[in-house]
């Protein structure tokens, strides 16, 4: 049976004027690492808050570890771990005080579940007498994760744990998640960073309160409707402007040092030649496998049309 089951969940604010979550359904299996991928304002936080019983849905149903999020909210609260998007620990308490406080609140002790947090806690232990407010971003995040884990939750909700965190710390954080998954904890994580999607087992791409697609990252990539090519030249800005005016180019988006394009007739050689004729130098192009970000853009366009 799935650990998290969501059916047609709807959440609006301001008396129905703002639709945050628009009839979303998905299921997360036990021990799965599931990602909600989408930009700010897509409804990720609202979904997490409903599943952690902090908000009541307008309509729809959801269960967490088989318990109903509306009626069994008290019980759910002892089974889930939650790390809100904003750093939510006591800044005026020390690392150790925070951890032992949350342990007691959840009716446990640091010792009891130390094995679960050991690998993470060991990294911040040298600073255990430092006030949480004085920690660096990466260390705060580790402490927050320890606090969310201390009661050995069966489901862990992490709301944008890597937002505003640099690439190195982000990588470290995902390593930690993998280790936790190995311990059998079901993990739901949300992120606006598309490149983190491939680190999840399954993902839901969400935008404006609706799910665009839900599958393994590999399958989502397979479902990309067109052939994708990357092209480059010596003047990337001129290149993108030219590509946009060419009728055979059906979409063009820049991806770092390349532009990703789809073509009406998939005639890449013809296009490259045309670009050279237009005066572009060092023109280069090749077919590539789409990234999740390419898929997201394509799905977004579909949804808008």
């Amino acid at each position, binding site marked *: 049976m799935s650990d998290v089951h969501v059916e047609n969940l709807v959440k609006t604010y301001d008396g129905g004027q703002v639709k945050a979550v628009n009839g979303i359904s998905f299921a997360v299996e036990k021990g799965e690492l599931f990602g909600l991928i989408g930009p700010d304002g897509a409804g990720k936080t609202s979904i997490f*808050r409903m599943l*952690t*019983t*902090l*908000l*009541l849905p307008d309509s729809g149903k959801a269960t967490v570890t088989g318990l109903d999020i509306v009626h069994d*909210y*008290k019980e759910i*609260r*002892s089974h*889930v771990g*939650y790390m*809100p998007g*904003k*750093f*939510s*620990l*006591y*800044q*005026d*308490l020390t690392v150790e*005080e925070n951890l*032992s*406080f*949350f342990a*007691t*609140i*959840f*009716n446990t002790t640091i010792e009891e579940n130390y094995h679960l947090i050991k690998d993470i806690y060991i990294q911040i232990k040298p600073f255990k007498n430092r006030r949480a407010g004085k920690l660096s971003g990466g260390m705060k995040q580790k402490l927050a994760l320890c*606090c*969310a884990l201390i*009661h050995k939750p069966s489901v862990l909700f992490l709301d944008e744990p890597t937002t505003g965190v640099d690439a190195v710390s982000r990588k470290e954080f995902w390593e930690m998640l993998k280790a936790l998954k190995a311990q059998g904890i079901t993990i739901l994580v949300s992120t606006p960073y598309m490149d983190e999607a491939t680190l999840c087992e399954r993902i839901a791409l969400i935008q404006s309160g609706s799910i665009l697609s839900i599958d393994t990252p590999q399958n989502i990539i397979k479902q990309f409707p067109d052939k994708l090519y990357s092209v480059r030249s010596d003047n990337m800005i001129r290149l993108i402007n030219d590509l946009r005016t060419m009728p055979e180019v059906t979409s063009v988006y820049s991806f770092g040092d390349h532009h990703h394009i789809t073509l009406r007739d998939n005639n890449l050689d013809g296009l490259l030649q045309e670009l050279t004729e237009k005066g572009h130098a060092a023109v280069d192009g090749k077919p590539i496998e789409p990234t999740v970000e390419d898929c997201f853009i394509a799905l977004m366009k579909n949804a808008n049309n």
Partner: protein
Amino acid sequence: MKQFLSFVRKEFYHVFRDKKTLLLLFGMPIAQILLFGFALTNEIKNSNIVICDYAKDVASQELTAKIEASNYFEIEKSLPNHRQIEKAFQSGKIKLAIIFPTNFGNDLWHGGKAQVQIIADASDPNTATTLTSYATQIIRDYEMSIRKTNAHNLQISAITRMIYNPELKGTTNFVPGVMALVLMLICVLMTSASIVREKENGTMEILLVSPFSPLLAVTAKAVPYFILSLVNLTVILLLSVFLLDMPIKGSILLLFFESSILILTALSLGLLISNSTNSQQAAMLISLMGLLLPVMIFTGFMFPLENMPRPLQLFSNLVPSKWYYIIVKNVMIKGLGLRSVWKETLILMGMATFLLILSIKKFKTRLS
């Protein structure tokens, strides 16, 4: 229970690590007591008085000399006729007049009993009561000293008259007033701010998601402020006893019991405010604007309630600190027991219960 205690400990950490607020918490009552007390003692020393001596005998002059010798009084002048006393009072220069009747000495030595009249300007009731009690004390001392050398049953009775405000309406004592003000403010302000701070920090989300009962969390939050308020109360009482020489006449235990009820009322009010606000500033603003003013005005220690229009008097019944003030005045100054303040106590308890139930009912177990 362990959970609860650990929560309380955490709250104490918050309180003690926020040095500025802590200073404010303890500084405010001390400053207020000193301010009021200093203003008062200043006035009481070297007050100008007049003497109207119809007797002009040994006894009256001895007593006059004693009065003059004290630090409290400065004899502005001696008046030949008591009719001039009123004029002297109206000039505003004098606070007190002492009148010796024609046969003061005679009555004393031969009759064994004499009278002296003290007239005080009660438009400032505080000063008036204090000054008359000083004067009476000097007369009592003189009485004792002459008893030693003469017959033991000699008696001088002082007849006190208050003019301008004979019933001493709005007789105020600032100590109970400061107590009411401090307890109300600190409890409401601090609880509401500390709960709202958890919302601002986002820690409320984690607490709500934990199996720890949110209501218990709120109770735990109230504990440090409850204790701090009692400490504050003790400080105020100590200051008033040892610095201002204002003894506590009634039961200290009763005083603390009544104070606890007010604190409970205030804590519930703070909880209620925190439910409807999401920022510390808003909570502070509501507590200050919605509370400071009504408490100052309607408690009765700054402005006599009797002089207010009827609707305002009725409104003042809704202010918990008004009842507390009456209770404390009776217990602390008049030395009365629970028997004479049970009605006010019941009203205060009713308010506490009502607010507590309301705030618990309104408490949200979710974010919205």
